[in-house]
């Protein structure tokens, strides 16, 4: 680590709703990239990007999974843009209790977009790579300010488990598990 304040690199996926054809290739590619082992399975409901489609109203909104929160918003927003009404939460990427989006089916653990962190790094996140219509485009820019440590997937998962079952219980289980391993 260098001493001086590091510039923050902002990774940005631009979304052009008008260009989306609703093919959901982004979901397929994302779920495959994040499968373990990598690419071994596809499953759009595991994707960290989802295209919210309401085809009879011409609504196609790719949303990227953002932060996890244990609480619902106190109120909701519905947007009307150019006369077209979007359902509530249409532009929100938060994994929250109000909807099924961005939770692992089964476990319910939250999913979060990590911009396809990889070693070596990808040229662009997978969803952008497969979006031939450029509804999704990628750019990086530098901003002043301290680079923030990315919260790791494991940490997000543990946080949500702690919210659900209580931190004490979680600690007990981890302690019990490590005792087992020690043996």
């Amino acid at each position, binding site marked *: 680590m260098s001493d001086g304040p590091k510039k923050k690199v902002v990774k940005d996926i631009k979304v052009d709703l*008008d260009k989306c*054809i*609703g*093919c*959901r*290739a982004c979901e*397929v*590619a994302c779920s*495959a990239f994040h*499968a373990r*082992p*990598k*690419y*071994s*399975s*596809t*499953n*759009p*409901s*595991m994707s960290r990007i989802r295209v*919210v*489609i*309401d*085809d*009879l*109203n*011409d609504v*196609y909104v790719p949303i990227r999974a953002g932060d996890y929160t244990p609480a619902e918003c106190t109120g909701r927003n519905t947007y009307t843009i150019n006369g077209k009404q979007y*359902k509530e939460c249409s532009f929100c990427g938060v994994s929250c209790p109000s909807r*099924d989006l961005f939770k692992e*089916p*089964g476990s319910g653990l939250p999913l979060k977009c990590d911009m396809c962190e990889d070693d070596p790094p990808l040229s662009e996140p997978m969803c952008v*790579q*497969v979006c*031939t*219509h450029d509804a999704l485009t990628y750019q990086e820019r530098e901003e002043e300010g301290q680079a923030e440590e990315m919260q790791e997937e494991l940490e997000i998962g543990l946080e949500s488990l702690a919210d659900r079952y209580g931190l004490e219980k979680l600690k007990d289980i981890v302690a019990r598990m490590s005792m087992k391993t020690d043996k």
Partner: protein
Amino acid sequence: MRYAETGFNLEIDLSRGNIERVATDPKLTEIYLGGQGTAGKIQWDRVPPEVDPFSPDNLLIFSTGLLHGTPIPGANRTAVDTFSPQTNLYSHSLFGGFFGPELKHAGYDKIVIRGKASDLVYLWINNDKVEIRDAGHLRGKGALETGALIKEELNDPDAQVAAIGLAGENRVYMATIEHANSSASRGVGVIMGDKRLKAIAVRGTKDINVARPAELFEICNPMYQEIYDNPYCGDAFLHEDDEGWHVNNFAWGNARERQKDFWNKEREEKWKGISDSVRLRWTGCYNCPKDCHQAISYPGRQTYFQKCYSKLTYAMAAYKELDFNYDILGVTQEHGLDGYSTPQILAFAIELYEAGILTDRDLPKFPSDSGERFFYLVEKIVRREGIGDALANGVYHAARQIGRGAEEFDHNSMKKFEQLPLKLKMINYPYFLMYATGEKMTITQTEGSYPQIPIADKKEREQFVKNWDAAPERFKKWFLEWEPRSHPSVEASVNICDWNETMHYIDDAIGTCAFLSSFRGQFGGRPPYHLYNLPNFISHATGMDLDSDALWEIGRRNRNLIRALNVRRGLRRMDEKPPEDHWKIRDPEMETKLLDAYYEFKGWNNEGIPTTETLDELGLDYVSADFIERGILTDSEGTPSQETSSEKEKK
């Protein structure tokens, strides 16, 4: 572990309300791949030829393709297979969109539906939870409207719905099954309606595993850009504003006449303006970069999706302009009516009226404008009201029910099924064979790999052949020799028909879209998927070892199995002829020669029945045994003709 497929079918008995999840034999995948192939096997085993299409024992099978739910771009067409009341033969349809992949993720390769519900129901498949639910409140609702209502009541916006409209509910023979931006045409909706199944909603959140992930991904990823950039695949025509090709070459009215001076620059401008003003956006199907569907918002109509040549079929049948077509599609698609056959039956009815065969008693208050007449007739047909009851059975049956000379006006059907409105001058050898011998009832489901017309310039021709990776060697030679205004040889014609149809049988088993492969080699010769790269995709996804020869063999097997389904229901040589006036100049002697040569090449006897030897060689010995038992084949007909071995050599 099963790769690419789930290994389970869903068996639904609507009469008893029984639902079962049944494990499938992995061997069947190796033999038939999946989709139409494995569905054909189920139909062979479980639907004997005595079963009337309207019997509860007729099956309605929704099949995912083997590659659905894998990362392979453009694998999304669901096959619907049953037996048709219109033809009393095999009935096969395909629809794109999102349904097949969703079904795979729910944990099923197929939905096999038998029996009949006592009242209108819909099926809700939510992973392992499957319910038959009352659909009384959806009676009469439009097809896409039904989808939206079901998603709302299930509170699951991610559910994928396939539904019938009023046409299916009332067992109209031209009834479709509608899903998202796609339609299953060629009349499969009539059986869904007969079973009183209004819709199927499916939601799946399970993983689909592939055998060799890294290898598969490596060949899949570049396909997105390749498909996107390739101007010859997808629905290239629909993106063009110059409609000259369809407008000049297809016949207007009841498939009657070509209007060669209709198309001009001024009209192109006008029509472009209409399309631009009603189109909300272009949309695509699951995991495919091509945008082949127009989302249309026409004033006064619910949003719908227009695809393919249905952009013009109603306008041309009614001698109207494009805005009429967009207007009526908003009504007919919600009713769930096939955009190919329906315009023909409407134009047929108008002809009968003008000829005095149908009168004001049959058509009270019949409007004078052809467009208004179309709307009038559509409502009669979907409700089977008055004369609509006969018209709802398609041109062939309606003509015979109406009588009084109406039969003379049925000039464009084949095997009792409406054909594309094409009226051409000179017989075309490969096309003669494709029309005559296809099991899938329309030419679009058979043609597609070999170019429709030769290239006049020798240099260009050579260049074309040089880049023609999709073609087996023998076709390159024939194409190089093919001069304008000349016929391919009998040998070439037989092979062209064979290649074209085999590629469709491959697509329909693995679920890849014909617009990326079997239908798209004929223009430009560069389909993204073809005989020589598909084995790699299939092998990496499934773990099966497969090369081009083995893939071709499976295509041949499925083609013979489907043939056998029709043969067992009575299809014979006498049925194998194109519409009487499809070509003005015919050549009966040559036609006999062509059909003889084709049958021989396929290893079929003179009646078009696959011989024992052919069937046994393909592992279809259960078919030959059945044929012998039923007296369809005798033991002596099992003897191969000399030429059958040549088919093998030429591969």
